[in-house]
């Protein structure tokens, strides 16, 4: 048995350390360390209620709008007026731009560069992959960054700027758009579709959305030969065996995303081993048995509706600033894969039925979702009525409790707020990577990444095992959200 400490683990959002016990050429055990604490929950106590809209997005620069949406919904849930239809559509559009941009930032800048590594130099696919995906210097990043910047131009109109907008409010969006601006937004979205259909998919979004099995995916990718970055990924995934890497067999959870009067685009719920389920939100707790916080007086896990526990850096039995959220006492995995499993898309369901939740399934679900959400954005844009209101001005109550649940690109995000006298009396946040990168709980059960890393192959002499890198990054972690 030997011990490896991998850190600073980069091309994730924020700082990360992974401690590995290696035995017989594979990872025997893993501990995931979130090394940064900033104290947002304490910072928010005593602030005027609506100031949460200034502080919350600044928890995270990559899921800033997700934080805004969760904060706005939590405040709205304390008792605000009805959300105008345009307000809901504008919020969905603003949120979708961020989520789609995040999926692609992950794919092009964070995840794919690892296949350009020298460790793969002997592989027949390496030269082309390195030319395309090498960090900073590869051709893909040069094409992706301008396309991403142009996609973000939607937010210049809809949200003033990104990240850290104040357009998203409990009553809707501050930014009404005119008919002429809707036309301009449509053109920007058309340009983005063109990038996806030329560069990422080399096919129509509708064709990608219609892929329903792994066999269909492999056949589709093979027919693409060397066209399209998604097909390139599928080919590399097959060659490396990413469908055997980073496997978990956990409950998948989604808070549901993009609400509308017809219900959410992706529903709330659970999924495991082919069976869906209802999500009992009030059975979510956080355990600090292995995290640097003072234990609760009764030692029991805490509801996010309870006040948070103060940090305690002196605890020797802890190893992370990340708490361990549990649903009904159990570990849950979150993210695009979980969201699409709960939503019932046949492709991720087939991938997981065959191989379990793996590196390959997580990445495929993310890119599938890029196609699905972009098509939904086109529908939302058409549904906006520029003559109707975008925001309701009913004031918030001085006192009340509310939960704001949404889905960031990387999974389920919840804010729980208590107001007293118009001010914040309690504010608790559970972020997606808090679920996925949680440390052990009181029962000793490791979090999803800690489980996914067990059995990962380690090559002779590897100090930063490449398989570990694929697995860690397959979760698209956001460490600044994780601890906040």
């Amino acid at each position, binding site marked *: 048995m030997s011990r490896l400490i*991998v*850190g*600073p*683990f*980069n*091309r994730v959002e*924020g*700082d990360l*350390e992974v401690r590995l016990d290696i035995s017989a050429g594979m990872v025997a055990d893993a501990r995931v*360390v979130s*090394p*940064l604490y*900033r*104290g947002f929950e*304490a*910072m*928010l106590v*005593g602030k*005027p209620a*609506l*100031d949460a809209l*200034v*502080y919350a997005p*600044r*928890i995270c*620069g*990559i899921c*800033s709008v997700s934080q805004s949406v969760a904060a706005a919904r939590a405040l709205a849930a304390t008792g605000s007026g009805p959300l105008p239809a345009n307000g809901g559509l504008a919020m969905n559009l603003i949120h979708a731009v961020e989520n789609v941009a995040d999926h692609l*930032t992950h794919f092009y*800048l*964070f995840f794919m560069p690892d296949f350009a590594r020298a460790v793969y130099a002997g592989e027949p696919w390496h030269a082309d992959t390195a030319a395309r995906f090498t*960090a*900073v210097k590869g051709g893909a*990043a040069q094409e992706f*960054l*301008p396309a991403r*910047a*142009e996609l973000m*131009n*939607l*937010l*210049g*109109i809809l*949200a*003033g*700027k*990104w*990240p850290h*907008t*104040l357009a998203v409010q409990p009553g809707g*969006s*501050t*930014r*009404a758009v005119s008919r002429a601006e809707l036309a301009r937004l449509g053109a920007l979205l058309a340009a983005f579709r063109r990038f996806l259909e030329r560069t990422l998919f080399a096919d129509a979004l509708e064709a990608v959305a219609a892929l329903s099995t792994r066999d269909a995916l492999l056949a589709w990718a093979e027919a693409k030969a060397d066209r399209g970055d998604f097909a390139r990924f599928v080919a590399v995934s097959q060659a490396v065996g990413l469908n055997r890497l980073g496997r978990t067999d956990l409950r998948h959870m989604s808070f549901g995303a993009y609400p509308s009067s017809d219900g959410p685009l992706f529903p709330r719920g659970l999924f495991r081993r082919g069976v869906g389920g209802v999500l009992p939100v009030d059975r979510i707790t956080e355990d600090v048995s292995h995290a640097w916080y003072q234990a609760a007086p009764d030692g029991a896990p805490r509801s996010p509706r309870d006040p948070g526990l103060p*940090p305690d*850096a002196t605890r020797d039995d802890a190893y992370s600033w990340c708490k361990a959220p549990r649903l009904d006492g159990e570990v849950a995995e979150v993210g695009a894969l979980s969201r699409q499993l709960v939503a019932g898309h046949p492709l991720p369901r087939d991938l997981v039925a065959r191989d379990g939740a793996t590196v390959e399934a997580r990445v495929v679900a993310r890119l599938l979702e890029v196609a699905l959400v972009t098509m939904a954005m086109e529908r939302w844009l058409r549904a906006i009525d*520029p003559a109707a209101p975008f*925001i309701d001005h009913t004031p918030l109550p001085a006192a009340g409790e509310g939960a704001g649940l949404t889905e960031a690109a990387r999974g389920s995000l919840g804010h729980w707020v208590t107001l007293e006298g118009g001010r914040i009396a309690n504010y608790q946040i559970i972020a997606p990577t808090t679920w996925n990168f949680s440390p052990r709980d009181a029962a000793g059960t490791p979090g999803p990444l800690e489980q996914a890393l067990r059995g990962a192959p380690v090559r002779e002499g590897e*100090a930063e095992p490449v398989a570990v*890198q694929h697995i860690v990054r397959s979760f698209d972690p956001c460490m600044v959200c994780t601890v906040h």
Partner: protein
Amino acid sequence: MTAISEPARPLRLLWLQSGGCGGCTLSLLGAEKPDLLTALAAANVELLWHPSLSEATGGEARAILEAVAAGDQPVDILCLEGSVINGPGGTGRFHLMAGTGKPMRDWVAAIARRAGYVVAVGSCAAFGGITAAGGNEVEACGLAYDGTRAGGLLGAGFRSAKGLPVINIAGCPIHPGWFTDTLLQIGAGTLTGADLDEWERPLAYTAHLVHHGCARNEFYEFKASAEQPGDLGCMMENLGCKGTQARADCNIRPWNGGGSCLDGNYACINCTAPGFEEPGHAFAVTPKVAGIPIGLPTDMPKAWFVALASLSKAATPKRLRDNAARPAPVLLPHDKRKDSA
């Protein structure tokens, strides 16, 4: 015959992150005209390491940082994004850099002493920023300031190897252009102390007020005010807007192709200023004394402002009065010649 000059050696840039959200990097990825990678090339800058962009991870990254800290690997530009974290109790344990068990603060201090230029990217790294809000439980400060107090991690007298103080590209987040302009000037060797303002922020963007170029200027001139978030009128009187005091070119240099906070119909919160994170009032509500906003333009006599405001209020065109408290205009500019023709 003119000799062909040797191409200059690329400037080596090292980027570290501590107590922040990563939003300045994410904003920077949205650089346009040109895009970020083209701007880096144009500035002749090479990344030694960036936490979001570089291939090197774990021990590979540690080796780079150790070589830089020891002076074995030259570094021309050190960028810090996020606050310096000193807590709890001055130990720095709220951020031990992954893989090293050593406070990030100590890494930053060691490397800053080796760097040609030291750049604080965002208000957190410059002044403490959002991370220092509330009770500042984590003891966050900036590289050369703790809020408005000179000092911070490196001390008030700090000068980098090129003889400059810490360059504070303040903002929450930064506009990508604020960073790339600064980098291009560093690359060209033209950045001097004269290019920085009183908080060592690049004048490239702080020579302006957010008010300059604001699309609501006509409403401001006639004191036709917005009443609710989303209204078209000036947001200074009621909605907390600090655009007339805040230093930045947000309404001259568009965000994300064509926006700004004010174009998004929400207030400027003065995010480029030290201490913006604790305004002492609700961000989106203008504090007033006897009905008069306390945050008037700083370099205008208050009595004059009040006198002019009451005059201009009396002269407000109907068009502005009717449009100010609405999310879309009900009266548009109209050429009267068309009616009499």
